[in-house]
């Protein structure tokens, strides 16, 4: 196959592998089209199977004829390979570099991967928009599913089916799409059952410098308001950024044209700023200088925690408008594919208990990220170690997961899943054997025939053993809205991702096991007591006839 020409040396013996908190392994290094494999060829020793697509960058060092390659992964792990022989080392290095930066999607591993497990439920069909809409229909008849984007012509980044107000026809939608960035006209993101308020999302309105307006757009979003009620437009950009956008044809909803809407500006940063922040944060976490001042100042300078706080605050604000103020909300930034989705998805975590279950959370990721057109392929093509100049890379999804972790930490009993699910999604968004995160939009996924040619991550996750592994033993369904604290004291660095490879996980694992043990033992006793009680009840019902003469 075509990979062969990229693999200059397929195999080297006597390679020593160093991994954080694991014993070193000596063995044979093999390169295949998609994996870097190190095997000691002995039983009971763990082999390393590393996807080339997980490699963010490599560093080569030489000491005499011994070469060393430091492999820096997108999941932030760093491993070291000591390779005897300079030529072998150089060959391996350049092969890895070539194989980890393949341009063509169709050469990616998911197209070659065959599942080694039994697929119980095909994940590609697990979260279809029409199914989600059935739930909505059970609650309200004010919304309908529109097929206006059936062939992806109205909006290239929207799915074929979107939920819109019942009384707005497809023509209006088409015209409104012309007035919104990327054709992303306002669509339903979330319906709040408690009071019937909704959250919508869209791209920015294309008002431009001369204040263009669009009656259809106004009609569309006004159709979502109850009589006499006001709504909120949450613009994720600062007012000055939004003003500047006018010069490039963008803009924001002015009071004059949208009198029933109040606009609130927040300050969620744009992609390139976030990518820079991630690089700095990871650099700080790997700094071995051991000076407290340096660590804190680097942590601060990375601004990562600031971004977490801003995103979470904005999501809380959206949730507050809906739940507490009884108002509907429209969220957008510029394109409506990044900060917008962070806000709408997090607001649902806060508002909707269903999103805090394992299935519900997957559904949320599918709906608000994958279907909603977050360009995963562009955003996640490089992580924190890459040397190449970033173009469209940004850790927007990772920031979302970080925010979910913050809420999970504050409400440890309200989520059905543990942090592990969040870490897993982070890993698979950047490198995966599954096709779920390939492509940039629903349209691209269709064009790439992903459902036909690749396996869905959800097929793998939704197996009993995996669900078991991701389940939170402390979970007790909590039907309430959960309001997190966004004070700086309440937002911590996500150790599970950023310090994952810097410290041994053993102590935390032990704590988790103990937690599981306490709860399992309790359940076991409960079952025993219950079964005894049933026996007792049976005996009691049998006894009376004997007593009555």
């Amino acid at each position, binding site marked *: 196959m075509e990979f062969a020409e990229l693999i200059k040396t397929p195999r080297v013996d006597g390679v020593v592998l160093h991994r954080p908190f694991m014993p070193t392994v000596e063995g044979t290094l093999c390169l295949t089209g998609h994996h870097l494999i190190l095997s000691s060829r002995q039983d009971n020793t763990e082999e390393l199977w590393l996807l080339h697509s997980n490699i963010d960058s490599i560093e080569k060092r030489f000491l005499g004829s011994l070469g060393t390659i430091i492999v820096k992964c997108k999941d932030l792990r760093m491993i070291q390979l000591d390779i005897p022989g300079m030529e072998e080392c150089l060959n391996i290095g350049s092969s890895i570099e070539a194989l980890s930066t393949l341009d063509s999607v169709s050469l990616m591993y998911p197209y070659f991967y065959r599942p080694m497990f039994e697929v119980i439920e095909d994940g590609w069909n697990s979260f279809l928009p029409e199914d989600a809409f059935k739930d909505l229909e059970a609650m309200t008849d004010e919304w309908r599913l529109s097929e206006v984007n059936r062939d992806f012509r109205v909006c290239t980044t929207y799915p074929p089916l979107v939920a819109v107000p019942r009384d707005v026809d497809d023509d209006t939608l088409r015209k409104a799409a012309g007035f919104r960035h990327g054709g992303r006209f306002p669509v339903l993101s979330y319906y709040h059952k408690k009071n019937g308020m909704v959250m919508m999302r869209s791209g920015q309105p294309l008002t431009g410098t001369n204040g263009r307006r669009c009656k259809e757009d106004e009609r569309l979003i006004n159709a979502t308001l109850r009589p006499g009620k*006001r709504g*909120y437009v949450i613009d994720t950009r600062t*007012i*000055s950024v939004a003003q500047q956008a006018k010069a490039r044809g963008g803009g924001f909803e002015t*009071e004059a044209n949208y009198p029933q809407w*109040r*606009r*609130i500006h927040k300050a969620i940063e744009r992609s390139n700023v976030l990518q820079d922040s991630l690089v700095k944060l990871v650099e700080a976490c790997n700094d071995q200088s*051991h000076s*407290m*001042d*340096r*660590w*804190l*100042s680097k*942590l*601060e300078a990375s601004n990562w*925690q*600031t971004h977490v*706080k801003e995103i979470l*605050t*904005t999501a*809380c*604000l959206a*949730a507050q*408008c809906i*739940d507490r103020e009884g108002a509907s909300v429209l969220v957008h930034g510029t394109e409506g594919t990044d900060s917008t989705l962070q806000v709408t998805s997090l607001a649902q975590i806060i508002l909707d208990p269903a999103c805090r279950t394992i299935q519900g959370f997957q559904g949320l990721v599918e709906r608000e990220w994958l279907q909603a057109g977050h360009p995963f392929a562009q955003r996640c093509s490089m992580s924190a170690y890459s040397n190449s100049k970033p173009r469209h890379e940004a850790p927007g999804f990772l920031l979302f997961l970080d925010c979910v972790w913050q809420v999970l930490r*504050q*409400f*440890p*009993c309200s989520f059905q899943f543990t942090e592990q699910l969040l870490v897993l999604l982070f890993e698979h968004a950047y490198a995966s054997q599954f096709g779920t995160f390939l492509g940039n939009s629903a349209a691209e996924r269709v064009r790439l025939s992903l459902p036909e040619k690749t396996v869905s991550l959800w097929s793998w996750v939704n197996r009993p053993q995996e669900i078991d592994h991701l389940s939170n033993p*402390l979970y*007790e369904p*909590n039907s*309430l*809205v959960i*309001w997190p*604290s*966004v*004070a*700086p*004291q*309440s*937002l911590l*660095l996500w150790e599970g991702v950023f*310090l994952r490879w810097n*410290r041994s996980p053993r*102590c935390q694992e*032990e704590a988790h096991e*103990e*937690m599981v043990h*306490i*709860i399992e*033992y*309790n359940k076991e*006793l*409960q079952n*025993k*007591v219950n079964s*005894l009680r049933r026996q007792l009840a049976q005996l009691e019902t049998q006894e009376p006839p004997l007593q009555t003469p």
Partner: protein
Amino acid sequence: MEHIRLPKAENVRLLNRLSPRRSCVGTLYLTATHSIYVESETQVRSETWVLHSLICRLEKQVNTSTGSPLLIHCKNFQVLHFVFPQEQDCVHIQASLQRLSQPEQYEELYCFSYKPNVDEAERKEEWSFLNLKAEYRRLGIPNSLWKSSPVNQSYKVSDTYPAELYVPESATQQVIVGSSKFRSRGRFPTLSYYCKDNQAAICRSSQPLSGFSARCLEDEQLLEAIRRSNPRSDFMYVVDTRPKLNAIANRAAGKGYENEDHYSNIKFQFISIENIHVMRSSQQKMLDVCELRTPSMANFLEGLEGSGWLKHIKAVLDAGVFVAKAISEEGASVLVHCSDGWDRTAQVCSVACVLLEPYYRSLKGLMVLIEREWVSFGHKFSHRCNHLDGDSKEVSPVMDQFLECVWQLTEQFPCAFEFNERFLIAVHHHMYACQYGNFVGNNQRERLRDKTHSLWKHLWDTRGDYINPLYRTDNCQSQGVLRPSTAPYCFKFWSGLYNRFDRGMHPRQSVEDYLMAVREETVQLEEQLASHKEVRGHSVTHETILPHHFTFLAGTPQDYSGGFIASSPCQQRSPVDGLAFTPPQNQTSEADLSVGSEQESGIADVSFNSQLSEEGPGEPDPDDAAYSAA
């Protein structure tokens, strides 16, 4: 009572620093020991009690149109912000509290008027709950290498040392007395901890009076005797916990540190922990950061860095790790000292003990450790905690730092400690509160135990509150030596202590409480199963006891809007503005509308008919915290 100029002030407002809409009006009563604030407009009687001995600072602010504000800063990090309608009331209350919170003699302290319903025999019994002699016996002392020395029986050799001390078997009275004359405050090297497994020992002392060249034969002999008491090692460490410069500066005053050339077989090591003055100012800077109204992440992290607090915590833990390693890995004995040997020395010796021995990670073990290393060895609690009206330069959070080091360790080793965070906070609280006699006074000689009660017995009796459900004695974390990482990123900000009263900042569901409740239920189930035979025939009315309230603490939103939604703290950014605050009954959105509207950017105001005010005042509300939506 003669200090109370005004026993009662009415219509006093208590402002909620973080969410002004939760502020209230009430009456403030002054008693001899407590100030009691009673809210007047609630259906359920709501009281806030402030123990006078906990007050550390009274801050009278500039009058505003609504009255005279008085901020009460407490040693347990509570801050109460009162506003008095009459300036005269404010002045009287301040003057009264000033005096009441700074008694001039021990006899005025709360522990002498605190009379729980316990008879005298029981009270005496409380004090025998912890027995240091038994603790040394537990360590295997005395033995053939270490003996008890009567030399300080009447506190003549060192008035700040305990009467009961342990020294090397070969150390004669003459050597000890000689050495004590060569050490600050007579605090000669004496046993702190003995490791049964390898016979290595931690000893502690004050600095030697070496000046530039002085030496003392007896002191050298005593160190040699200590080294020999550890037959398996041919050297010992002498750890000076001060920064080298400070130690050198001390030489000019005739003090200083050990010259390696004069002592045989010692390895001398400096470990830089800063002095009490640096620590005091560092903590104050950190507290200023904690009290910011709506800090941004950058404000907070910059402030935290600027305070240097975590750097100091790391220095103390690093020092403890050094000593623990010397003992456990090199099998070498260590002599630890600083200047007087009652601050940094106590920190380092006790941190090392926690790392070395599982017993000190148990509830009772930590009590014993504090009793030995801090109380008996003369940590000047009354000076450091400012129990009496005294020199403010003597105040320093030395013991706070030890408790925080232990807390940092509990975060790294969640299964290794029998006690929980609440226990550490309780000890912290009582160190300052003076409700019990344990920490009153500066050394054993001064301590007044014949009229007061003992904290340890009280904590032990209520230990149900302090148990860590994840602790298991057979866990590998709970056994052996702890080897913590002291990389900077392993240190967290302890909001549980420093923002203790800002409840909204803390996780809304407690894993620990949840697990404790599950365990309690498990115990009941076990009992039920055990007594199954007896139960048979009766109707079993066992209900699931799981505490559902843990999962329903969702509460209310905070201010995420940065001033758009009614009654956000951002409209009241400065303390003075904070007083321009409408009475709670009018505190709905209308009152604030005009303030929040049309901010810089043409952003509309929000005329919420706020549902925020729908919550009744009696409703329990877990999160009245801050929103810093700048």
